[in-house]
């Protein structure tokens, strides 16, 4: 095996509001049956990486629940495995992870006990499909010490949320700024890095000793001139789930045939924890158009341009328009839901109405009862 994987899934994002108040962003439900982490995790195993650490911290219960067995991603082997690394107390240390680099530092044993030459690091909350072998091959071809995958982001507001890189004509990184006020280029890091395992150990030990804890700011940016850092251009589908709009739009993009085809129709597929729900049931009065529907759903009403997760029930004459309805939510007869994100296991009683606006979908928190 050429590489071990690390997925950084500890983060929270206040811009997702009530949706991430109860879960890590890596556990955000996507596309009727996935969670965000399924994408990097499947990318890992689909690239032949069979030893993957998932670093969790913030609100990790739903993530741990989702990752209850390594089997579903084919990670249940003796030579590999799925390592879920949460902060823990020791005699010397009673700290949470102080940031990304620190979270790797506190789990250096995982890297030290491996013998694979490379580490692939990915964030846990981005929706994309990538063959990391190609990044590793590029990394070797360039003789790079660090490779950072990037994409072009023309929107000058959007790019301020990312790490912005500048490249020379050989694709070598000449500058790197995290979330800059005045971006100097339109090239954004997508949070996927390849580097040598031993170099990562060495650098992380060095910076943490100096009281620096952030992987991008304190390591890559600070060492940008000293290390040979190269950019790997990725033009495929990539979406960040870092605010309500991005989350809503990314889900709706699964209504496009090409997006479904990429993730679900083209081998290797994105894997998720199976829930063994029966087929979705469309009863006699159901009118379901331009919708994605998860298994185990029972539909009696109308639905249009919506993402309906597993085990959702819709009552007779109910209307669901331009909405995301998460797993296990129950919608009563004659209820109306428009421009909304309805979290899991919500009960919307008969005749209740939930209306957000096209500009701002209304969020209904998990397990609430409406009407």
């Amino acid at each position, binding site marked *: 095996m050429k590489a071990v994987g690390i997925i950084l899934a500890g983060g929270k994002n206040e811009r997702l509001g009530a949706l991430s108040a109860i879960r890590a962003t890596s556990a955000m439900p996507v596309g*009727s049956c996935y969670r965000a982490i399924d994408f990097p995790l499947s990318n890992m195993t689909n690239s032949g990486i069979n030893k993957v650490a998932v670093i969790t911290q913030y609100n990790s219960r739903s993530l741990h629940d989702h990752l209850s067995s390594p089997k579903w991603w084919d990670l249940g082997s003796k030579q590999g495995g799925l390592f879920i690394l949460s902060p823990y107390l020791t005699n010397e240390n009673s700290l949470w992870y102080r940031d990304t680099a620190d979270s790797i530092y506190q789990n250096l044993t995982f890297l030290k006990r491996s013998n694979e030459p490379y580490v692939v690091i990915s964030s846990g909350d981005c929706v994309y499909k990538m063959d990391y072998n190609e990044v590793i091959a590029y990394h070797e071809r360039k003789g790079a010490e660090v490779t950072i995958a990037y994409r072009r982001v023309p929107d000058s507001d959007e790019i301020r949320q990312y790490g912005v890189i500048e490249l020379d004509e050989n694709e070598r990184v000449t500058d790197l700024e995290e979330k800059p006020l005045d971006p100097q280029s339109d090239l954004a890091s997508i949070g996927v890095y390849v580097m040598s395992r031993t170099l990562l150990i060495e650098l992380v030990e060095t910076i943490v000793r100096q009281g620096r804890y952030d992987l991008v700011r304190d390591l890559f940016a600070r060492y940008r001139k000293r290390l040979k850092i190269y950019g790997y251009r990725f033009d495929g589908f990539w979406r960040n789930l870092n605010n309500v709009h991005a989350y809503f739009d990314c889900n709706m993009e699964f209504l496009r045939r090409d997006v479904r085809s990429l993730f679900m129709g083209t081998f290797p597929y994105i894997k998720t924890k199976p829930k063994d729900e*029966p087929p979705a049931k469309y009863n006699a009065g159901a009118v379901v158009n*331009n919708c994605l*529907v998860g*298994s185990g759903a029972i539909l009696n009403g109308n639905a249009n341009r919506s993402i309906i997760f597993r085990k959702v029930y819709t009552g007779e004459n109910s209307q669901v328009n331009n909405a995301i309805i998460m797993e296990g939510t129950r919608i009563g007869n004659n209820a109306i839901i428009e421009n909304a994100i309805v979290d899991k296991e919500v009960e919307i009683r008969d005749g209740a109405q939930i209306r957000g606006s096209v500009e701002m979908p209304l969020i209904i928190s998990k397990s609430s009862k409406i009407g």
Partner: protein
Amino acid sequence: MRKKEMIAMLLAGGQGSRLGVLTTAKAKPAVSFGGKYRVIDFPMSNCINSGVDTVGVVTQYQPLQLNQHIGIGIPWDLDRRLGGVTILAPYLKSEQGEWYTGTANAIYQNMEYIDGYNPDYVLILSGDHIYKMNYAKMLDFHKQNKCDVSIAALEVPWEEASRFGLMNVHEDNRIHEFEEKPPQPKSNLANMGIYIFNWQVLRDALERDSKIHNNSDFGMHVLPMLLEEGARMYAYPFSGYWKDVGTIESYWMANMDLVKTVPEFNLYEDFDKIYTDADHQPPIYTGPNAVVQGSLLSEGCEVLGSVYNSVLGTGVIVEAGAEVRDSIIMQDCYIGANSNLNRVIADTNCSVGDDVVIGEGENTPNADKPNIYNTGITVLGENTTIPDRVIIGKNCVVCGHTYPFNYQDGKLESGQSIIRDHHMKGGE
């Protein structure tokens, strides 16, 4: 020594010849059911839901798809270090090689496997029925009554009783007589083919019967012999959904039971789920002009056309303008634009071209196999392809890659068949 209180032996070797072309390339337990399942998923899931974690699956007829489906038992949590699922195919022995010649003979030939777990009880199951049952409760009944053998029994309607193997019982459910499909039934307690034996009783009976009958069978030989000898045999009363899917018509009916608004057989409970091999479970998409009513759609389906009163397997595509009605369309089938399917069973991976009509015409029984195809249902075998713009009647069978010239004047009349090599996929 290793020890399991009860292990299950699942008889999955039968062809199910009355299912016609559906069982040409696979055994009956491997036939798809209810969209995403296969028939064997029901007894397999019942086992794990009842705490039976050691299952020997006895295969013989066309086992490849069954073996692939079961694998090492992951979908049913039957991948165990001790126990779990084991496929038991017939094999050569030092003196002679032998096929399984009867239901009891198949168990007789696998006594060594059973002995390896040193069980007190052996549960005998078949892979032919759709039902949910808790075998642990049946075992409790077995122990309470100090049975040698207990047999699950279902009260069937009196008018249908003569189609079943029946059991006549005393008030305490102790069996005193077996009757096989009697014209004048004395009881309506049908034998469901689910048995719990004390292993030592069964072991001894199998050894003795194998010396008498070389096609040793439970219903015909072993059970009557034990009854004759005075063994304590009890009927375990079961009530609930239980359907045989042995014929094209009963197979179609049992699938259609599931699409009713409130089905008699509930797959949507949170516990005692039915598990199947489906690790890739993408969602379903229904397009802007799709109409889907009274139907079950499995994961990965894409419907742009119309689907009424039908069951669709995983990954089925129904193109725009197509209409599927009263049909069972199995995994990975493709229905081309503007095609019209009425009462069709399409086995896995069929491809129907554009502007095709299937199921139109007189209800003429199939000319070659009138006893199998006679209820107006047209069946497409695995990997069948149908060219654009042909018309196919009722009770037809089409199997394999077909070309326009296979259809005289672009038509296949009701009751006619086109059978080509079903293993041919795509062109030749």
